[in-house]
Each structure stands twice: as structure tokens, then as C-alpha cells.
């Protein structure tokens, strides 16, 4: 059977066809051949451009005519493109009705999806060639993977950016808390001075006590800020959630807002969990903020703890922290999505608060649950495995000196103890208050407001034969560093007692073994007991 195809029709049916004569000279070729073997020209010998990959029984192109109807596979020498098709021999011409092969049958070294490199297009393939669908599907998958990679990189960059921002915010919060601590120190110390004078009437005494209590609440807030700014990369540690909550109540109350009453009902005293301190505080802040947002106007938030017995919770003994509000509650549709990342019903909500609470709990081997009733309120329960039960009070090391101590008035003046204290503090009001307090206690105080004046005062004392017994210095000084000053004083006065004060907790490498550290805001009792506890100077022994 003979049939004739117009060149255009042939090109549509077999875009990669090659027409040769019996000498193997190229008479015509399809557009796909032109795209993929650009050096090929009419009149060239096919052998100049292609080799036969499969065997058709005999070597060489001259044998092709004898194998009409067989399948031949050619490989372009220049581009590596593989063409597969039937040999159609008739008369003086041989038609090689070829198709582009997505994968070489003989040599699988051509990536089927490297479309950019091969510069192929759909029209290079014959109509209905299943290779097109395969290539498009593989290419879609490749694009999906590429997009996933791009998205992962973009998320990583976002994470870096937000980490950087958080780090800066944390540092600024730390600096602010530090300065605020200094001011609170002054207020507390001077309130103590006023109370210590003992000449106030009942009304004035009550006012001074209010000032001291307010300063104490402020101290609690700065303490929480310092915790959050300092312990961003905190690792799990054994802690008592009750002690942590108690410590941060002033901060939670601030987060709850003025119109909302925050109460605690802590029934898990001594129960210890393994958790990162700042992460626990963050978890509670998230819950308190959520509860606050759920309330219109006045309301109540209760933070409660209790230990669930093995039967009540999941697995072993669990500690349950619950935050309950009297807000508007949620409907069922919202309730089913509350832990979904980025879901929020609030205009300014980012939808990461509750999911992060659940992540926190699950990371620690616990769980987070939420119960809500419309117009009644919401209760979120976080459970964390209990790792130990300690006697009440032993976990108090987490909390700095309690406020009750701060409110105690100064005792009556003591007899002069005769010990000389070189006191360095750049806040003049704090310097004045601490000077008076120490003098009240019988110390001889040499005040200095910075590093230079401290060194000058030291020189004077040394020349007079009265070296200081104690150096009490702030760490951050306007013209230097308290730790450097301490090292210098120690070199000049061997055996001098050293106590450092700061709103920041210094690195332990900066503090020598015998030095004391006194955190700010200063608690008068804590300060005095630390100074009194310093051993006598070696020279005196």
C-alpha cells in the first residue's frame, strides 16, 4: 500500500522525522529535529550527526532500507538527544518516522525533566505522544519540590528575621528593666529610710508602705521582664510551676489589664516539672493575654494548679495548670479550630498563641486542652509530667527575696563595727540611701559615684592607712566596669571583701569565687545580710 503525505502533514504527525536517501544523505527533517539538533542541515550525511544506538541487524545506515518496519534509535552526537521511530523504506527515499525519546533506551544519561537544558517544547513531540503527559507531570512534581525548597528557605529567612527582632526587643526590654530596677531600688531604699526614722505618724507610715508595696510590685514586673529577656534560649530545668507563677504574678496582672482581676489558686506546692523557665512564663502570658482578649470590660482570670493522680491524667503523675476566664466563650465552630496555627478570630490576632501553648505542653510530654461555653467563659488546661515532689519551701530558691522582707523597717542603729566600705553607685539617690543604711548599720562608708572617683578614694584611703574592708559596687558604671574595679581593688587590698550589684545577672566567669552578687532592685535586708556575711579582710585576721 502506497500513500503520500504532504511535508506539512508529515511534520505534524512526526515532528522529529528525517528523510534520507539510500546514501544516508539528509533530504528533509522535521521541526523538532531542527530544535534539538541545530547543526543538522539538508544535504548533510546522517552519520555526521547521529549514531545508531540499537542494532537493526546490520551495522551502518545503508542497511536501513533493508529493515523497513523495524524500530531504530538514533543518538545525536552533538546534543545527545535520542530519537526513536520506525524505518519506512519505499522507492529512492527512506523515512525515519522518529519521536523524541524522553529517556534514552540505551543510555539513561539524559534527564527527562531538564527542559530548560534541552530547550524542548510540546510541539517537538508527535500528537498524542504519552511522553508529553509524563514530562509535564514529572515537571510539575519537580516544580512542587522546587517551590517547597524555596518556601522552606523563605521560612528560614523569616525565622532568622523574627529571631533577630526578638533578640533586639529582648535586649531593649533588658536595658529598660535594668534602668527601671535602679529607680525602683531608690524608691524602695528611701521608703525603708523613711520607715526607719520612726518619726512618722500612722497615716504617713501607711503612705510610705503603699509606696514600698507599689515598688515591690514594679520589681516583680521587671523581674519577669528580665527573665524573658535573659532566658530566650533557656533549656529545660527542674522547677516548681507554683513558684514560677507566684514570682510572676505582678507581670501576669499587668498583662491581664486594669479592669480584669487576676487570682491564683496554687495547689501544687513542691511539685517539680522539667521545663524551660522562660517558655513556661511565655506559655502563661499567652494564656493570660488570650483570656484578657476574651473579656469585654470587667472580668476575672484565675490561674490554678493541681497535681493529677496517675489515673486522672495521661500516663504518670501530671501537674495541671489551668487558666480560666469569665469572658464571652466560643462557639463550636471556633472551638474546633482554636489550636490550629494562624487561626484567629481577632482582628489583630496572629493565631500562634494557643498553638504555641499546645506545642509547649507536647514538647514536655504533656497536653493542652480547652473547654469553653458561650457567655460563660473559657478554661485552658495544660498538663506537664511531674518529675519530683519536693518538700514545700525547697523550691523557693527560684524566687528572689520575698516582699515581706522588703517591707520590714530598718532595725535600730547598731554600734559602729568599724569596717570601711568603698561604695560605688552611679545613681546618686541610691548612693545616698545605701550610704545611710550602711552607716546606720555601723559601717564606715566611702561613697563614690563612678570608677574614677572610686579609684581616687581608694588612693586616699591607702595613703591614710585605712584601706577599705569591703568593696560594694554596681557592675555597670558610667566610666567602667564594676568587675574590673573589683579586680583592681583586690590587687591593691588583698583580702578585701567584694560584693557586686546589678539589675543584670552577670556571667559567672566574671565573678570570682569569693565575690558576692546582689541583684537589683535592692532589697535592704538582702543587701545588709550579704555585706555582713563578707569575711573580714585577710589583713585583719
Amino acid at each position: 500500500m502506497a500513500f503520500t503525505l504532504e511535508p506539512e502533514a508529515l511534520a505534524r504527525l512526526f515532528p522529529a522525522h528525517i528523510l534520507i536517501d539510500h546514501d544516508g544523505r539528509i533530504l528533509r527533517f522535521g521541526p523538532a529535529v531542527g530544535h534539538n539538533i541545530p547543526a543538522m542541515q539538508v544535504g548533510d550525511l546522517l552519520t555526521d550527526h547521529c549514531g545508531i544506538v540499537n542494532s537493526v541487524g546490520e551495522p551502518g545506515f545503508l542497511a536501513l532500507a533493508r529493515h523497513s518496519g523495524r524500530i531504530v534509535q538514533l543518538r545525536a552526537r552533538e546534543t545527545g538527544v535520542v530519537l526513536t521511530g520506525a524505518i519506512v523504506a519505499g522507492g529512492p527515499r527512506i523515512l525515519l518516522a522518529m519521536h523524541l525519546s524522553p529517556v534514552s533506551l540505551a543510555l539513561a544519561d539524559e534527564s527527562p525533566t531538564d527542559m530548560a537544558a534541552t530547550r524542548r517544547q510540546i510541539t517537538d513531540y508527535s500528537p498524542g505522544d504519552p511522553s508529553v503527559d509524563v514530562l509535564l507531570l514529572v515537571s510539575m512534581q519537580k516544580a512542587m519540590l522546587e517551590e517547597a525548597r524555596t518556601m522552606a528557605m523563605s521560612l528560614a529567612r523569616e525565622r532568622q528575621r523574627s529571631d533577630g527582632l526578638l533578640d533586639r526587643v529582648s535586649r531593649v526590654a533588658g536595658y529598660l528593666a535594668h534602668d527601671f530596677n535602679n529607680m525602683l531600688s531608690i524608691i524602695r531604699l528611701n521608703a525603708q529610710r523613711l520607715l526607719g526614722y520612726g518619726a512618722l505618724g500612722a497615716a504617713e507610715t501607711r503612705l510610705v508602705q503603699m509606696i514600698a508595696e507599689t515598688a515591690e510590685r514594679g520589681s516583680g514586673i521587671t523581674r519577669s521582664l528580665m527573665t524573658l529577656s535573659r532566658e530566650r534560649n533557656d533549656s529545660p530545668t527542674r522547677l516548681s510551676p507554683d513558684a514560677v507563677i507566684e514570682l510572676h504574678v505582678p507581670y501576669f496582672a499587668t498583662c491581664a489589664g486594669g479592669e480584669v482581676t487576676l487570682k491564683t489558686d496554687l495547689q501544687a506546692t513542691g511539685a517539680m516539672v522539667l521545663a524551660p523557665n522562660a517558655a513556661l512564663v511565655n506559655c502563661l502570658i499567652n494564656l493570660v493575654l488570650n483570656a484578657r482578649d476574651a473579656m469585654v470590660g470587667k472580668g476575672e482570670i484565675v490561674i490554678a494548679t493541681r497535681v493529677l493522680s496517675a489515673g486522672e491524667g495521661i500516663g504518670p503523675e501530671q501537674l495541671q495548670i489551668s487558666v480560666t476566664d469569665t469572658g464571652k466563650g466560643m462557639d463550636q465552630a471556633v472551638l474546633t479550630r482554636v489550636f490550629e496555627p494562624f487561626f484567629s478570630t481577632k482582628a489583630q490576632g496572629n493565631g500562634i498563641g494557643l498553638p504555641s501553648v499546645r506545642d509547649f505542653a507536647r514538647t514536655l510530654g504533656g497536653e493542652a486542652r480547652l473547654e469553653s461555653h458561650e457567655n460563660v467563659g473559657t478554661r485552658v488546661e495544660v498538663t506537664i509530667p511531674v518529675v519530683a515532689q519536693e518538700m514545700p519551701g525547697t523550691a523557693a530558691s527560684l524566687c528572689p527575696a520575698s516582699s515581706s522582707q522588703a517591707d520590714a523597717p530598718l532595725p535600730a542603729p547598731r554600734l559602729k563595727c568599724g569596717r570601711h566600705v568603698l561604695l560605688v553607685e552611679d545613681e546618686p539617690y541610691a548612693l545616698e540611701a545605701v550610704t545611710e543604711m550602711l552607716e546606720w548599720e555601723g559601717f564606715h562608708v566611702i561613697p563614690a559615684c563612678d570608677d574614677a572617683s572610686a579609684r581616687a578614694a581608694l588612693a586616699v584611703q591607702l595613703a591614710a592607712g585605712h584601706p577599705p574592708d569591703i568593696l560594694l559596687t554596681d557592675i555597670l558604671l558610667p566610666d567602667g566596669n564594676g568587675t574590673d574595679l573589683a579586680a583592681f581593688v583586690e590587687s591593691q587590698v588583698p583580702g578585701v571583701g567584694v560584693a557586686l550589684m546589678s539589675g543584670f545577672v552577670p556571667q559567672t566567669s566574671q565573678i570570682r569565687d569569693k565575690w558576692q552578687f546582689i541583684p537589683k532592685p535592692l532589697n535592704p535586708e538582702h543587701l545588709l545580710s550579704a555585706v555582713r556575711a563578707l569575711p573580714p579582710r585577710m589583713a585583719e585576721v
Partner: protein
Amino acid sequence: MIHAAMRQMVVERLGEDQWLKLEREMQLGPPDFISLTVYDDAVTLRILDVSARALGLSIEEALRAFGRFWVRFADSGPFSSMMDFTGKSMADFVRNLDLMHRAVSATLPGARMPNFSVADERAEGLRIHYSSPREGLEPFVGGLLEGLMERFGLTGEVHHLPGTTRPAKFDVLFVEEGSSGGVHS
């Protein structure tokens, strides 16, 4: 992918901060912008509506602008090799769009793809037929064809021929210096 492209268009025109505000207004987050996911049309229309208002455009204008942007967006990301593979000329590209969409449907069951065909091809232009299970996206297709003209280095105009019968008909008229012409209906 539509959502990701809409976000990109608004970000390019109004900045990232403005887009983040709109995202909050729409209560959407990253999960709503994963390219190869089938989303509810209602979400897409909400994004379109909010974006159009932010850009100061009517819905129709926004769709057309978005169609033009769409080609550029697809061309610059991981789908660029698929775009190249689909065709080296505008006519080939449009002719092969259904094949490309078939691969999308196979990858994303549930995706509803349109159909395109080249009804007439002449030196001076193309007559393109478009039909879709969705309604009201003709301005988007107009913008898409404009974007394709730009992609293939062509200048000219795209006209949506009046009429309500399916398929919708578009004339793409190429303009060359010193010549004029069109496709006859």
C-alpha cells in the same frame, strides 16, 4: 498558586507591610498561600476583593492586571521550565495550555481547569476560544493574553468579543510598525 501570585502582586505594588495588614483583615495565614493546593473559590474571591480595594481598582481591572501579572509570576518561579516547554510561540503556547492544565489536574485532583483553543491563526493575530467551569474570569483571561504577548515579545491588543455564548472569544491583534490587521470573525 493563584493566592501566592495575588500576594506577590500586592506586595510589589503596595509593599509587604500593607499586605500583612490585608492578611490580618482577611484572617489568612501562610497555609492559605501554598501554591499547589486547591482552595475554596470563596477564599480566592475574598483575596481578590480585598486586594482590588487596596490597589484602588475595580474587580474587573484587578482581574485584568492580575492576568498580566500571572504570566510574569509563573515565568519567574519553579514553573518557568513548564512555561517554556508549553510553547515557543504564543499560538503554540495557547494551543498546548490544555495539556499543561491536564498535568495540573492530575497533580491536584479537584482543580477545575479551563479550556483554550486557537480557532484561527494568521500573521496578524489569533482568535482564541476560552471556556471554564467558573464564571466571570474573562477579564483575567484578557490580562493573561496580554501577558503572553509580552512574554513572546509581541505588541498588540486583546479584545473580548461581545456575546454570552460559550466558549468566550478573544481576538489577539498583533501590531507591527506600518501594518494593521485583524482576525475576521
